[in-house]
């Protein structure tokens, strides 16, 4: 079973984000981490592998800056087997559609049975790249999976819905987008960290993938950042402290006064 996990390095949101002159996040100034939702996709892949008694090879697929391997290394330490990084100076400022085209081309260069992705990324929040890749590659697309099961020829997921879940099944190869309910991502073990040193991360440029820089990079972006401003600060917060019964009364009175209840 060959599983590909889409993994994006994103700015560490616990730090202080800084914007560059192009109003995009200055990625060089902020430490990068694995996009948190992608860690769930990797966790799902690792659990599928374990359910098969270890019979699976997991490849991390990343489009990112030349420093991306340092972030990818954590995924390898968690248990993925190898990495494929698409990096190219022309890709700076690429839009979601370009990203999907590049990753679809990279997938085309791999042999795989299943692609796993997180719901969205903590920097872009678009949540469309996985669907676009599935469309470009002609893969069945199973979204919002709360649980994933594999047979040798098919994947079955529980897609979360407002009423409960839908059972979806598709033949392999397929694209599955997982939610955080697949299970908490594991910590990389210390032995895993050491083992990751010798795992291979292959780097590919746009030319390697047969893509023209003017077709997918920043130059071909379908979106532009026009303006950027910090969110308005919230009004002063009132914190009610005290024993629960009295505190609850105070909250109820506050809400009633404003006719919320």
């Amino acid at each position, binding site marked *: 079973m060959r599983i590909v996990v889409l993994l994006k390095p994103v700015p560490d949101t616990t730090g202080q984000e800084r914007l560059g002159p192009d109003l995009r996040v200055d990625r060089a100034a902020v430490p990068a981490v694995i996009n948190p939702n992608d860690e769930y996709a990797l966790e799902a892949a690792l659990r599928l592998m374990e359910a098969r008694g270890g019979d699976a090879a997991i490849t991390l697929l990343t489009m990112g800056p030349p420093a991306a391997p340092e972030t990818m290394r954590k995924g390898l330490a968690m248990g993925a087997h190898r990495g494929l990084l698409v990096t190219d100076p022309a890709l700076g400022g690429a839009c979601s559609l370009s990203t999907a085209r590049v990753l679809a081309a990279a997938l085309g260069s791999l042999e795989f049975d299943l692609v796993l992705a997180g719901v969205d990324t903590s920097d872009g929040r678009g949540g469309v790249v996985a669907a676009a890749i599935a469309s470009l590659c002609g893969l069945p697309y199973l979204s919002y999976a709360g649980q994933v099961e594999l047979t040798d020829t098919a994947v079955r997921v529980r897609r979360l819905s407002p009423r409960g879940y839908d059972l979806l099944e598709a033949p392999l190869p397929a694209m599955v987008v997982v939610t955080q309910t697949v299970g908490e991502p594991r910590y990389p073990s*210390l032995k895993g960290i*050491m083992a990751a040193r010798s795992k291979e991360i292959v780097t590919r440029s746009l030319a390697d993938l047969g893509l023209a820089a003017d077709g997918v990079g920043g130059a071909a972006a379908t979106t532009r950042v026009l303006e950027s401003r910090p969110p308005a600060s919230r009004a002063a917060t009132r914190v009610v402290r005290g024993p629960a019964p009295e505190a609850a009364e105070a909250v109820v009175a506050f809400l009633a006064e404003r006719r919320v209840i």
Partner: protein
Amino acid sequence: MLSVQTDRSLTEEERLLQATARDFAEREVAPGAVERDETEQFDRRLFDRLGRLGLTGAPIPEADGGAGFSYLGWTLAMEEIARADMAVAVTLSVHLLSQLPVVQWGTAEQKERWLPAMLAGEALGAFALTEPSAGSDAAAIRTRAERRADGDYRLDGTKIWISNAPDAERYLVFATLDPSAGRAGITAFLVEKGTPGFRFGRKERKMGIRACPASELIFEEAVVPAANRLGEEGGGYRIALSALGEGRISIAAACTGIAQAALERAAAYVQQRQAFGGPLSEQEGVRFMVAEMAREVAAARALTRAAASARDRGEPLAEVSSLAKWTASDAAMRVATDAVQLFGAQGYSRESGLERLMRDAKGAQIYEGSNQIHRLIVADAVLRRTGSAGSA
């Protein structure tokens, strides 16, 4: 604060170890720290999880079943764990202290029998040297080891202040074959909990690091097989000294973690706390305190890493590990005390978790060689190196 990713003096795997330890410490260790301190409870399940992560054997060579990290890498992890809870860091440090001598002096058979369960975190280790009349003066121990006719040894005596006891399963015990022989009589033994004649005395009621137990060990005609003697007869003092040299670096790293925690919390608090029409951080006196705290932390960290790197290069450790442990434990005490001062009454409250940093730091000025002993070790090294040539 140094960012994990930007410290380019570390290798990629050291940075990933540091990030992993920080993540684990913040999410799994910090939340229960105040409660564990209040209830003086050793948390076995937490130790199990540290074992699964591999922190229980981080700097043990891969050939011996460990993760094979540098000692520098180990100090990064210790700092992060102690930043969340010093008691957990001390448990880990002592656990390692009881394994490293087996790695260095154990036979292949002893390593095979002793290490795997400890590396996996399934068996907790303890280091039993201290006695009622032998603390920093370790050569004065009185616990007797007598060789029996069948070659096994009989142990009699009492150890006190043995960290991780009575919870630990594996004890590295130092006893003397001849009390009149001083250092030359001291011998090291691997002793398992449950050995007939080996029991626990009273549990210490401690000021700090209360979630790391410490107890008396009592040996009454306890028979230890000859196969459990570590190293040669009379080789124990050297084993103890070498282990303590490494252990001091571990404690120095943990103290840096306490100081870092105190600094971070104080720096955040003085910017948020309003007094006399502005945040406390606008007062010059407060700013000076924050700067001095940062200096202490940086000095502690720098000396700790220098000592760890010396260990990784196989250099002599006595002086540099003493400097690191003395500096870092004093730094932890001062920075924690200043943090409590800046927090005022809130810091004095047990619920804040800040006064715990003070209590935890105080112990580190006393154990693993009191800081007075470290002055003697450093003076000895400096004077010996200089000789009388300097006066000419």
